[in-house]
């Protein structure tokens, strides 16, 4: 969840960039952790620490943290797969600070399909064994990556033990007991590619990203491989909001901080092409829970465009007006009016993996 509206942490293929808004507008800072691929970066609003997951090509995946507001980073003990899994960490895909009532809890969603949690501020990590058991029993397969992976983690602000995760490819899963047990929450989702004989299974789905509405944690938005969905009952069921071509395929979704019926998505051209539709970038905004959507194009390139934002590359600030997204070829766009108009802050970033207000 975003914590402010004036500061962005941008995880790129060549380091972690901070972008801030001051009196003179937006400015790009120095690249931290230069040369290192940053899979995800976020600020922990509970203590101000900044976390980054690093995808070293050669040295494996690592976690790094700054406790001096981004001036310096130190490596944190990385989550490791227990021996019984026979697996090794391939990617720390998403990082999520725990609930305010559990100040030393922190989550890492990983590939292969794991959720690691620390309850001692990163000194030790535990693989969520119940979720892992489902991954192995149901043979979750890869989607965006070689193996299944946990890419979305939503914590109920009313209850630290009530957590949702989304897995490509499995589904959305919910725990109400702090990860001791998990249940698939797939009712209403579609899987057009389900192999014959598996259509009724609650797993095999490909949610690309889920976002909880901060103003009503029973409202969850989902950009899925096969469309856009919303739940108003805590993921007990999903309503299909898909309206091709613009409310259909894509990766990120952002939920308004105070209006549970408002969200943004960024459409892409089909799973087989994965480019901006008709060479133009467009953000779609709904203010009525997904019944109708407005095209937001002002300031975005409307021809000759092929790049697009990955799933962690769209965020909205706590003011509900400031939005930012960045793309696979390093274009960074910001809006200060809820998406009504956009400005490109730079065309020259490395490939962007995450964009989060800090």
């Amino acid at each position, binding site marked *: 969840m975003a914590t402010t509206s004036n500061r962005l942490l941008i995880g790129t293929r060549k380091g972690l960039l901070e972008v801030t808004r001051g009196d003179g507008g937006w400015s790009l800072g120095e690249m931290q952790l230069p040369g290192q691929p940053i899979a995800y970066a976020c600020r922990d609003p509970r203590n101000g620490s900044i976390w980054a997951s690093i995808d070293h*090509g*050669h*040295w*494996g995946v690592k976690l790094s943290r700054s406790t001096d507001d981004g001036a310096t980073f130190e*490596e944190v*003990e*990385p989550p490791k797969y227990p*021996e019984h899994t026979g697996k*090794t960490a391939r990617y720390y895909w998403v990082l999520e600070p725990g609930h305010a009532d559990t100040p030393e809890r922190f989550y890492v969603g990983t590939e292969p399909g794991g959720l690691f949690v620390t309850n001692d501020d990163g000194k030790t990590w535990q693989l969520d064994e119940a979720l892992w058991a489902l991954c192995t029993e149901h043979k979750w397969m890869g989607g965006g990556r070689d193996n299944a992976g946990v890419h979305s983690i939503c914590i109920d602000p009313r209850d630290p033990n009530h957590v949702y995760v989304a897995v490509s490819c499995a589904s959305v899963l919910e725990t109400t007991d702090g990860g001791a047990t998990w249940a698939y929450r797939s009712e209403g989702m579609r899987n057009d590619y389900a192999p014959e004989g598996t259509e009724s299974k609650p797993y095999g789905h490909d949610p690309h990203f889920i976002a909880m509405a901060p103003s009503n944690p029973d409202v969850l938005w989902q950009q899925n491989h096969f469309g856009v969905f919303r739940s108003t009952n805590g993921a007990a069921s999903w309503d299909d909001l898909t309206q091709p071509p613009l409310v259909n395929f894509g990766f990120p979704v952002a939920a308004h901080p105070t209006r549970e019926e408002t969200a943004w998505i960024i459409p892409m051209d089909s799973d087989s092409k994965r480019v901006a539709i008709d060479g133009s970038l467009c953000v779609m905004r709904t203010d009525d829970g997904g019944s109708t959507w407005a095209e937001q194009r002002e300031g975005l390139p409307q021809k000759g465009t092929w790049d697009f934002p990955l799933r962690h590359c769209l965020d909205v600030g706590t003011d509900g007006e400031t939005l930012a997204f960045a793309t696979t070829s390093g274009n960074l766009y910001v809006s200060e009016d809820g998406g009504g108009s956009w400005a490109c802050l730079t065309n020259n970033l490395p490939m962007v993996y995450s964009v989060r207000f800090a």
Partner: protein
Amino acid sequence: MARVRFTPHLSRYFPLPAEHESDAGTVAELVTELDAAWPGLGFYIVDERGALRQHVAVWVDGELIQDREALSDPLDPASHVTILQALSGG
């Protein structure tokens, strides 16, 4: 004592000397020793199953080690060890 040299790319993350001396009997023992001396270094060289990472290479006396899974290749006091990584991409 076997003499161990490191790729300079590892020195970015750990304050490694130009040369390290070791009396480890195998490459696996050497990695354990290195991790004790520079906590976390082992996880750069091997994964959590103890296997050499895909793009990391360990040379002993001019030969790539044979056992990338368990790192059982022997070392003796005269061994020269080099730990490298494959550079790739842009």
